[in-house]
């Protein structure tokens, strides 16, 4: 019996998208190769580094550890959905102003993980931010600045009551 490809339909960064893929396709490959959104990175491919983190139905997950078919019908936000140069999301503003990145490779995943953290805890302590960073690895090891960036972002969001992504369902 031949294995049939499956239609995977998602709403990604507000747009309906669809692609026919093999059931074994990883969500991260679906997003990058089939939908052409290469902001989501692959760092380790073994569930450790978190560079591939995206929001699925409002929860941050490692997209290299989820099958695309499992995400069929869901709402996804990737780093491209946060904001652009003229209209930065508070987390991007935080990273910009507090120098939260060096080479930038881990940054999309770290930002998505931190959006996920702030959704669960809008006013995290330094320790809670560091705990939240457990699932991401920054090879440039700029963690101190990342913590500063997240605190800054949290403050902006609390003050302006900006809607977090992945809220609307």
């Amino acid at each position, binding site marked *: 019996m031949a294995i049939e490809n499956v239609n995977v339909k998602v709403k990604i960064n507000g747009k309906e998208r669809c692609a026919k893929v093999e059931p074994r396709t990883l969500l991260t490959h679906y997003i990058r190769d089939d939908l052409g959104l290469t902001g989501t990175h692959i760092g380790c*491919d073994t569930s450790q580094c978190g560079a591939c983190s995206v929001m699925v139905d409002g929860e941050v997950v*490692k997209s290299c*550890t*989820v099958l695309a078919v499992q995400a069929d019908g869901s709402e996804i936000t990737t780093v491209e959905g946060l904001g652009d140069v003229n209209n930065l999301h508070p987390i991007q503003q935080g990273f910009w102003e507090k120098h939260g990145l060096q080479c930038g490779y881990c940054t999309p995943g770290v930002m998505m993980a931190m959006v996920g953290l702030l959704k669960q805890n809008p006013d995290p302590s330094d320790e809670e931010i560091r705990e939240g960073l457990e*699932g991401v690895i920054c090879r440039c090891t700029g963690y101190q600045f990342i913590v500063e960036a997240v605190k800054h972002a949290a403050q902006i969001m609390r003050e302006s009551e900006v809607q977090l992504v992945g809220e609307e369902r």
Partner: protein
Amino acid sequence: MIPSKFDYVRVNSIDEAIQQLKQFNGEGMLIAGGHSLVPLLKFRLSEPGALIDISRISELKGVRKEGDRIVIGALTTHFQIANDPIVKEYIPVLSETVRQIGDLQVRNRGTIGGNIAHADPAADLPAAAFVLDAEIAIHGEDGPETMNIDSFIVGPLITMLPENSVLTSISFAIPPAHTNAEYLKFSHPASGYPVIGVAVVAGVGENDVIDYIRIAITGVGNVAYRATSVEEKLLGQTLSQTLLKEAAQLAAEEGDMASDLFTSEDYRRNLCKVYTERALKSVFYSN
């Protein structure tokens, strides 16, 4: 890394899942959160002919109190359990345990049923399951049945889950009101999995006599185990620091200590004693 080819079906009920398992005749595997299975698929350590996705079966989700037990649906995620008000009120040690699993992203995806069914020797949950006398509810071809955790997990990645069946929920005993509980973990710094995890539920009655004690240890060998010789040493005795120290010395007795590239057998044996003593002290002396 790309898994081998497999078929995929999504099911919406337990009966449908069992039917599909039968249909694929030993070639089909259930997938819930996928956070133990997908890594195995990617390494091609597991090459099923088909994945049967149970993750959207709503009757397998959620937490409820039933008499003196807390029943948790197999698909309830680690994050949901960590933050569930019923779990926090009646069995806070479980919430404390799942809060220490992996990381934020893993806890959002991984499920309690998948964790127990996978029976990873380094998983956190089995320790809590032992001290809270967990009963595993299973639905198979012949209907529902239950098994106690101590007969369910029999080896590394080996359980007594019958063919063509689904783990539907896990129920935990609410410990007596006068007891305290603790889960202490020494994590592997890279993977986050426990090198050792010790769970304790214990209490003292009149005249400081220890009248309730359950201790379980995970991560050190092939399977999690109840440290019964520690329990026997403590039960009915008058609480003292010396007694706890002596009892903790027995902690490594029941388990087969693994020796691998992380740690030697001797080091694990020592961790057992140190972490058991710390967990006991915390339970008996913290408040």
